[in-house]
């Protein structure tokens, strides 16, 4: 990780990795979606709406994993002052916000036929909505700091503090037993039948690979913009 903090070394790896992860991600997502829509049986209770799971669960995972990534890059920025850490945090935020929003919207669409309501102020739904707002606040804060020429330390502190919401989202279904169902997929097994579950790893891995590719693209853009800014500043002082 420390070796990758060198921008030149990072770019040597990131250039081919961007294309590879995007290609792998698209193939896996297309395969997972096709299988989820045509090859799996409807659920005995939810019927066909169970197919929304193949989009909703990866979006929820990436919404949360994105903030975990922001917290990790914030910690490396504050503790080790890695030159790429702030760039990584800023690159992750729009992708994480997009998937948090997809999670909220697809969950709402699933909720209408399954629960009879588009929205409920349930613990899981509310904490996920808070995560989306945290992303927006992080993006605004990081952009404002960057425009003022700051190092992004305030955004990094915000990224670390915001991580408190991650265990709240995870345990919300245990702490507040309201509308959202409990955990159905764990490390030791799943309560979902394997006939329905099997395309889920394809979309989970596929969307994760796409997420990685988007973050690499944003990091490359961030590094190129910084290079342009540094050259222009140098030219102005000469």
């Amino acid at each position, binding site marked *: 990780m420390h070796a990758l903090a060198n921008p030149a070394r990072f770019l040597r790896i990131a250039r081919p990795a*961007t294309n590879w992860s995007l290609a792998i991600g698209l193939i896996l997502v297309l395969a997972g979606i096709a299988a989820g829509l045509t090859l799996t049986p409807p659920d005995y209770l939810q019927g066909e709406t169970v197919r*929304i799971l193949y989009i909703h669960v990866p979006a929820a995972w990436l919404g949360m994993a994105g903030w975990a990534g922001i917290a990790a890059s914030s910690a490396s920025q504050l503790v080790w002052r890695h030159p790429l850490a702030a760039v990584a945090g800023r690159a992750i935020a*729009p992708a994480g916000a997009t998937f948090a929003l997809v999670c909220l919207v697809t969950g709402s*669409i699933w909720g209408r036929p399954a629960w009879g309501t588009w929205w409920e102020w349930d613990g899981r739904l509310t904490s996920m909505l808070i995560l989306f707002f945290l992303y927006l606040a992080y993006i605004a804060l990081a952009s404002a700091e960057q425009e003022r020429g700051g190092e992004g330390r305030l955004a990094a502190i915000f990224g670390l503090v915001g991580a408190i919401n991650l265990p709240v989202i995870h345990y919300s279904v245990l702490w507040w037993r309201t509308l959202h169902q409990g955990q159905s997929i764990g490390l030791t097994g799943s309560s979902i039948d394997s006939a329905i579950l099997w395309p889920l790893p394809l979309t989970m891995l596929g*969307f994760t690979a*796409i997420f990685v590719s*988007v973050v690499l693209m944003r990091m490359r*853009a961030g590094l190129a*913009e910084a290079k*342009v800014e540094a050259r222009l500043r140098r030219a102005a002082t000469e």
Partner: protein
Amino acid sequence: MNPWPFVIAAYAVGIVATAALILWAFASMRRAEAAADKLKRK
């Protein structure tokens, strides 16, 4: 209640949002790297 409009709407949201994210990230990367290359050549 016919479930398919809900399933199609959820997939449309997921696919459109992901496609828009990829296109935006790709376009901004190409634009920034082209600007950096142009400045390097000067």
